[in-house]
């Protein structure tokens, strides 16, 4: 009997870290209510825990001003608060979610007053991804036998361009420790960040066409553990947009100029790099002498 769990561990015991987009600006304008979305997610999380006793689920909230851990199925704190009327997953998660949403709103107030409306802020995906990866490193540290970790991003709001570097750093770190990032994107346009995240880390990117059957998509696409994915035909990527956007006009380009010092991308030729200040076409430190300049002109 003691050998059975260790065998299970090597195959199909999962540590699923879910990042849940709670951005109120997105959900208030979206056609599908958050409460219904949440009920699909909770049913899905329960089914993950039912698949194996050793499975572990961690939920992280991706707010628009902060991120926090909502639920950890391995933590002992959960089991104390079971009231009998509701299983701990629901009561703890919902309680933490309420606390978090209230706190997130508090943080939002000074900002909204200062900014005075404008475009809705994107969710802090980079923060929740970083936290998820830290958590997964802890699982790796726990010993040679640990559940197979993976991340599932449930995201609805649009990409935040200012998070680009941070999200890419997280993606490469996940790739380095072979943690796949699955993404279920329910917004209207494809998310280029999540497409790249799933492509680079070997996860699944999927945008469900009908939100009413969300649970069905969750259970057929994202519930499969890494071991059994090899035997299934899961949705394939429809092509990933790897084009870069230039730093000067934020346009997406397929051919451009790259600064050899800092790798900034420009859509047209410049004489001086706006990011690192290098002057192109001459040694960086040499202040061009007047004769030099004349000859060039």
């Amino acid at each position, binding site marked *: 009997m003691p050998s059975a769990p260790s*065998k299970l561990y090597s195959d199909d015991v999962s540590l699923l870290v879910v990042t849940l987009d709670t951005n109120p600006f997105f959900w208030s304008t979206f056609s599908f209510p958050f409460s219904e979305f949440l009920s699909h997610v909770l049913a899905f999380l329960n089914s993950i825990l039912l698949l194996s006793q050793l499975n572990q689920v961690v939920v992280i909230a991706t707010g628009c001003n*902060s*991120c*926090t851990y909502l639920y950890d199925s391995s*933590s002992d704190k959960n089991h104390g608060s079971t009231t009998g009327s509701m299983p701990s997953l629901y009561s703890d998660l919902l309680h933490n979610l309420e606390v978090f949403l209230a706190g997130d709103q508090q*943080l939002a107030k000074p*900002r909204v007053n200062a900014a005075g409306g404008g475009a809705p802020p994107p969710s*802090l995906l*980079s*923060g*929740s991804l*970083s*936290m998820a*990866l*830290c*958590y997964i*490193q*802890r699982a790796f540290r726990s010993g*040679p036998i640990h559940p197979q970790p993976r991340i599932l991003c449930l995201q609805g709001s649009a990409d935040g361009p*200012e*998070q*680009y*570097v941070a999200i*890419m*750093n*997280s*993606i*490469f*770190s996940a790739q*380095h420790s072979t943690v796949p990032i699955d993404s279920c994107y329910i917004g209207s346009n494809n998310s280029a960040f999540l497409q*790249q995240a799933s492509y680079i880390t070997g996860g699944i990117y999927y945008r469900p066409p009908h939100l009413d059957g969300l649970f069905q998509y969750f259970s057929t696409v994202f519930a499969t553990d890494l071991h059994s994915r090899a035997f299934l035909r899961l949705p394939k990527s*429809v*092509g990933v947009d*790897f*084009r*870069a956007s230039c730093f000067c006009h934020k346009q997406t*380009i*397929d*051919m*451009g*100029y*790259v*600064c*050899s*010092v*800092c*790798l900034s*991308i420009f859509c047209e*030729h*410049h004489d001086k*790099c706006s990011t*690192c200040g*290098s002057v*192109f*076409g*001459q*040694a*960086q*430190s*040499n202040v061009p002498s007047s004769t030099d300049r004349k000859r060039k002109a």
Partner: protein
Amino acid sequence: MNNTVKRPLNGGVEDDDEDEADGADLEAWERTYAEDRSWESLQEDESGLLRPIDTTAIHHAQYRRRLRALASTAATARIQKGLIRYLYIVVDLSKAASETDLKPSRMAVIGRQVEAFIREFFDQNPLSHIGLVTIKDGIAHCLTELGGSPESHIKALMGKLECSGDASLQNALELVLGYLNQIPSYGHREVLILYSALSTCDPGDLMETIQKCKKSKIRCSVIGLAAEMFICKHLSQETGGTYSVALDESHLKELVLEHAPPPPAIAEYATANLIKMGFPQRAAESAVAICTCHEEARTGGGYTCPRCKVRVCELPTECRICGLTLISSPHLARSYHHLFPIVPFDEVSQTSQNGSSHNFSSDCFGCQQSLLSQGNKPGLSVTCPKCKQQFCLDCDIYIHESLHNCPGCESFRHSNSVTTAQ
């Protein structure tokens, strides 16, 4: 459990897990004296009992020293880094490389370290190129030309690991000089020499060659495996490289991997330039096209050059038809963390925790691990100077060495807007 012990016996020779691999051919008591100096990892506690040293604190102290050293050099130097590197690795395969002072032999150890280095190098410098040169029988031989594919280099090196004859520093430098003189001016030219021999057997004046390297702005670094040699020191001093001698295998590994992160861009070494590059899109998985790299029809997974529309299989590469450098935006993004490094975290001292216990959190912000050591006393922890969140030591190392993001700063909007404004 049985499974894991048996695996190395079945031929998992490449399995790098040392205690498992060693367990296969050495008995536990032999291993203790041959490999680990087990008596060094013991210490006496207050009551005079021997216990294993708590190594986490020591490891962390070492890591922090390294981090501080890095941070101080970064502060003095400009943030410009040589991100586009052309590096030749010169491996000395003279008969000195068959010495067995490193187990099983210097050559095997070098092979292993170079393999690890090549992988790490391309992970950190996706737009750079590596070439391999070996010295054997007094002759330098070019094993692989400058290229961007780690697998082909590793395969070539592993097939050629046999040594004989003398080493010649001059021949190797002359060969590398010939290749590196052809590369574009914006690239950083570097040579990394792994030198086992204690002598060099040259056809001419080595000093002249060193001056030539200096003139061509090639940064030459040497890692010695035997003892310090004047000529190696002279070479690295003249050309702005580093010279170090490895004490043992783990030290060698450290020294080799020091060369993986990009060096600070030395102003007169490479001219800044705008390079024209293409960002090809990945074709749909079912499309069939003839690729230019293998010259055969392939289904799916190719990239199309935006200028001449030919198909290539892998990125980054240079278009065979029009010569455009083809990359994808993630390749560029992989290098950005060198330009925006994250600040070292401050250590939380025990006394300050007691004084201001109200803002001491009991869990690590990153991984939720409890920061309390046994007896509910606060253990060692660090805090980010920007967002004031506390992290455990393991997360600290992970955040600085792999993630390059502070989870605390990333998950609060206000600090986020500050960083973007800077």
